[in-house]
């Protein structure tokens, strides 16, 4: 399946875009996605931390990704 990942802040700059696409198998997890992303964008490993969100909720490493999920990469937040 093809998934899209929204990006903000420093990750938008690392990706060079506010949205990227990746091809993944149907049973892929958040943990698999992190691996793929870090392989393609090694600068992610230099961040203090980052999370992934699925459908506007923070996701856990074992969560499964479904087609049409809204996925976003969340670098360290700094609002307020």
């Amino acid at each position, binding site marked *: 399946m093809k998934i899209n990942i*929204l990006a*903000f*802040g*420093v990750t*938008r*700059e690392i990706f060079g875009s506010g949205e990227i696409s990746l091809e993944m198998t149907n049973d892929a997890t958040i943990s698999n996605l992190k691996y793929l992303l870090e392989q393609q964008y090694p600068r992610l490993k*230099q*961040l*203090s931390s980052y999370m992934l*969100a699925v459908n*506007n*909720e*923070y996701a856990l490493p074992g969560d499964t990704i479904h087609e049409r999920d809204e996925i*976003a990469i*969340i*670098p*360290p*937040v*700094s*609002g*307020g």
Partner: protein
Amino acid sequence: MNTQILLSAQTLDIQSCINWIMSPESGGIDVFIGTVRNATKGKKVLKLDFEAYEPMAISEMNKIAAQAFERWPVQKILIHHRTGLLQVGEVPVVIAVSAAHRDAAFDACRYIIDTLKQTVPIWKKESFEDGDVWVAAHP
């Protein structure tokens, strides 16, 4: 409605925040106002740029308000946050909490700003004379 959440590219209107939070049932109101400081660790700040993942930011702000209502006997909660470019002295965030008794208002207001800074997907880029930095991005 006892919760008001706003994410806005316009100047936050503090007076209207206070008008909304005041009520005849409340005895104490605590208001936290963030402002853009002219310096960070001694370096002159020129401006700040706030970016938000809007639907999730709204959802996370609502969650924080719901948690505060569960934990403290408060009456109304308001969270307004700016997006876009802010100059020194401008207001990125206003949080207001009303309660019958002031301790709950103080505790909830502080909880909300502390938690917002940890969980709400909003990012700020600080501009200095020698370049820009996404705050907290790198160790």
